[in-house]
């Protein structure tokens, strides 16, 4: 057969049509053949990253054909990034765990029935809880999606240990914003006249409709400034790319505030009315001049003045992108850098302003009332988050995800459930992370044979693919500004290919085996019904539409005030607090001021660099690195290469395409180099996607290297993050491919 690619010909359902199709299919026949297909469209949500864009999944003869962006969903608006397409195609990928597995030896597993798995896990968990108490149980996950089904168990057995991946991702930002603003706002890209993306690659970590708004705003005359040591994808559409010495962003932000305050460019009326602690801030930072910052950032003082003035001149239709991963788990000063993000935006008076920062619209879901509501008293958190004397200032809701081996070694944690999280690859120091296996019971709930499952799990309980499961409705919010609230739903488009289950069924099975018969005595449909009750949308309507926009409670460009007309943010004073209340504890300053990075490359050494990383627009960090559709892009476009400034490369005798060796105290690894003008000379950059070492994932295995190989597990003192760019490496020519 010529037409291997048109696999639909093989499907039995079109035998009649196929009989009419000639031996080889010409392009003109394609249309005719396509029209005879049995194509179904199911509205659901993407899982290419954590943004959960609305999508339409098109099923052709029972197989996934393609996906497209949901036209209503505020994040996709009919458009999708490469990840969204690739993730869908990987439904049929080879890396998926085909059914429940039990470890027989290091890296070796045998299939086991669900009943047997539930029975064994339930018994072991009961035994551990009896011996060590329920607080020795840890639920470790990417974030939030599993919480709904973790909580009943955590509450029942009395464990406070719910930890998300956020300490490896962006906790410095959420922590600072929570303490200073009481929540997070989003840039109103569509209406902005001036946007600063500092350490924020909006075109790498993509919200498709957000990018659409940014490029449209630019067409309408908005100016885009990108400050990043690397020419990131968003820099491509910037009016100005300002490379900055990595680790010095705090200094730049302090100096920008200095210009705005000393030149009286800030919004005084706004500050007076809505800001607490302005004088303390200024008192503390009067000496942070552009000249002072030039020394630290490498950006000319005049350039700092220029962008500060432009920023102020365009305010309030100007903002500094609040950002996510970019600067917010990278350095010892990341929390202060995030704090300065709040302060700069406040000085521009752009909070709750069109073209500035706007809140997400709210959805008031109903709540499903659980039947089994017995709660057991919980002990202290094992990660120390929020505990005086430990990590008092770290958000307990997110926790510290990258020191689990310590918690196990200290005897605090005996059993671990890991849900859609792969710390062996996405947290620092994989050899250290491997010690998670020292826990008495490790259960991983992934979809694929990720490193954490293979090297630490005693049991692997594979969850159904996102296209194979239905989840409760979610409010669509975050990242970009949108006036009306939206709700969307993830629902099953394809029949499960393998012996997998959705999380709720897995939890029901495990807990029943533990003797908790009513803990998950409900279905997703029960929950959905209860949740949608007050919303005014029926489950049927939502399932049909996938994403629904509610014409209620539109957000307005108004600063929240209470009955007395006083500012009413969720902070201690109701105002934007330049001094974070919580950060004053332990003698720490609540006000951000300069803190130098923990380590610096020695500029006199030709081979020393800071190792920085970033998100490629076609990979979701390591999650998609085994996706052959996306790795095809990696291979065609040299995606695994380490970027090095051409001047530095020349001094080291390194040429574009050469194999180079990167070494830190922890690891020595070798990859090809991309020699370029598009990166700061003092750092080298790699994508966060690669370095797979699970030999059960053929596509990602040994593909490229990962920044986590080179950094020890450190804890940033304020927000508990990994400080993943506090690492100096040496780079030399040569090495084995």
């Amino acid at each position, binding site marked *: 057969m010529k037409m291997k690619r048109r696999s639909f010909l093989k499907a039995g359902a079109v035998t009649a049509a196929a009989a009419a199709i000639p031996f080889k299919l010409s*392009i003109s026949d394609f249309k005719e053949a396509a029209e005879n297909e049995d194509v179904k469209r199911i509205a659901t949500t993407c899982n290419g990253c954590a943004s959960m864009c609305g999508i339409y999944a098109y099923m052709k003869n029972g197989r996934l054909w393609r996906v497209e962006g949901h036209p209503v969903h505020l994040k996709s608006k009919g458009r999708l990034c*490469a990840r969204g397409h690739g993730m869908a195609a990987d439904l049929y990928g080879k890396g998926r765990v085909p059914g429940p597995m039990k470890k027989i030896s290091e890296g070796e597993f045998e299939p086991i029935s669900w009943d047997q798995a539930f029975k064994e896990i339930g018994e072991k968990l009961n035994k551990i809880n009896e011996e060590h108490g329920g607080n020795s149980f840890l639920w470790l996950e990417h974030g939030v999606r599993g919480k709904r089904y973790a909580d009943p168990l955590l509450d029942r057995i009395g464990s406070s240990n719910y930890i998300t991946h956020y300490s490896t991702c962006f906790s410095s930002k959420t922590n600072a914003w929570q303490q200073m603003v009481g929540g997070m706002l989003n840039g109103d890209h569509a209406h902005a006249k001036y946007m600063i993306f500092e350490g924020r690659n909006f075109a790498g970590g993509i919200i498709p409709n957000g990018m659409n708004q940014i490029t449209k705003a630019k067409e309408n005359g908005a100016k885009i400034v990108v400050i990043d040591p690397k020419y990131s994808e968003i820099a491509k559409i910037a009016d100005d790319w300002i490379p900055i010495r990595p680790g010095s962003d705090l200094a730049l932000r302090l100096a920008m505030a200095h210009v705005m305050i000393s030149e009286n460019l800030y919004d005084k009326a706004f500050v007076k009315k809505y800001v607490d602690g302005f004088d303390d801030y200024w008192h503390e930072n009067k000496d942070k001049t552009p000249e002072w910052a030039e020394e630290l950032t490498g950006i000319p003082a005049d350039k700092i003045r220029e962008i500060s003035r432009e920023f102020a001149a365009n305010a309030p239709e100007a903002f500094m992108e609040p950002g996510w991963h970019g600067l917010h788990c990278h350095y010892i000063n990341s929390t202060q850098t995030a704090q300065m993000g709040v302060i700069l935006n406040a000085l521009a008076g752009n909070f709750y302003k069109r073209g500035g920062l706007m809140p997400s619209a709210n959805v008031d879901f109903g709540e499903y009332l659980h039947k089994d509501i017995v709660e057991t008293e919980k002990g202290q958190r094992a990660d120390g988050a929020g505990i005086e004397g430990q990590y008092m200032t770290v958000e307990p809701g997110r926790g510290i995800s990258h020191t689990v081996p310590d918690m196990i070694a200290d005897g605090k944690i005996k059993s671990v459930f890991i849900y859609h999280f792969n710390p062996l690859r996405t947290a620092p120091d994989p050899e250290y992370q491997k010690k998670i296996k020292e826990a008495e019971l490790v259960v991983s709930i992934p979809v694929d044979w990720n490193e954490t499952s293979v090297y630490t799990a005693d049991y692997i309980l594979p969850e159904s693919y996102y296209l194979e499961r239905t989840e409760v409705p979610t409010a669509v919010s975050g990242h970009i500004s949108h006036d009306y609230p939206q709700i969307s739903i993830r629902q099953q488009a394809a029949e499960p290919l393998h012996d997998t289950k959705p999380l709720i069924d897995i939890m029901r099975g495990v807990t029943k085996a533990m003797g908790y018969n009513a803990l998950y005595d409900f279905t997703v449909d029960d929950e959905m019904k209860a949740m949608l009750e007050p919303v005014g949308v029926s489950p049927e309507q939502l399932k049909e539409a996938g994403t629904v926009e509610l014409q209620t409670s539109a957000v307005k460009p108004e600063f929240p005030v209470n009955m007395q007309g006083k500012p009413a943010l969720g902070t201690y004073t109701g105002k934007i607090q330049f001094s974070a209340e919580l950060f004053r504890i332990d003698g720490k300053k609540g006000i951000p001021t300069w803190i130098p990075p923990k380590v610096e490359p020695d500029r006199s050494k030709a081979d020393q660099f800071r190792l920085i990383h970033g998100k490629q627009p076609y990979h979701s960090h390591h999650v998609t690195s085994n996706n052959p559709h996306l790795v095809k892009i990696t291979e065609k476009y040299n995606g695994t290469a380490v970027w090095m400034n051409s001047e530095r490369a020349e001094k080291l005798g390194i040429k574009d395409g050469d194999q180079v060796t990167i070494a830190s105290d922890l690891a020595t690894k070798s990859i090809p180099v991309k020699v370029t003008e598009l990166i700061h000379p003092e750092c080298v950059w790699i994508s966060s996607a690669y370095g797979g070492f699970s030999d059960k994932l053929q596509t990602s295995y040994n593909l490229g290297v990962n920044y986590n190989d080179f950094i020890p597990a450190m804890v940033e003192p304020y927000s508990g993050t990994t400080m993943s760019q506090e690492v100096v490496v040496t780079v030399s020519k040569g090495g084995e491919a």
Partner: protein
Amino acid sequence: MARYGLLIDASKCTGCHACSIACSMYNELEEEVTYNRLEFIERGKYPNAVMEIVPLQCMHCDNPPCATVCPTNATFKREDGIVSIDENKCIGCKYCMTACPYDARQLNESRIPEKCRWCPEMLEAGKQPACSSTCMNEVRLFGKLDDPDSEINKKMAQHEVSQLVTEKGTKPRIYYIKRK
């Protein structure tokens, strides 16, 4: 019969590659085949350096060298301007591949040089093909060149446009918006 064209605003492309994979899925392409690609250019010296990205795919030339050289007329120009392939007639001589100055052809498992087909069924339905409809930055705009009220014509009137490899006489039907 409509005359189709494609206008590309390369300055807006941020290199996410969604176009390539959306196309591959829509057209159910084999793993080795992609109908569109991006070319990257670096200009300038650090710190005043920039990157340019140019999306490329079959230009559906008005004087298509691939069709001229095809011994069996397997590649032919349709009335609407789309350069199409009758895979039945293809002998697999790859002459079209050597003739195309844009490297637009990709050999499939059946040893037939495929290429972007401009998804006429979408254009006829007044829709954008997958490469365009998925693009967050609206880099591509397909449309009717012979309809003065079409969006593509309106946009082309607003901008200066250029084409690639015009010196080879191919008369391509993809236009690129010129930016300073």
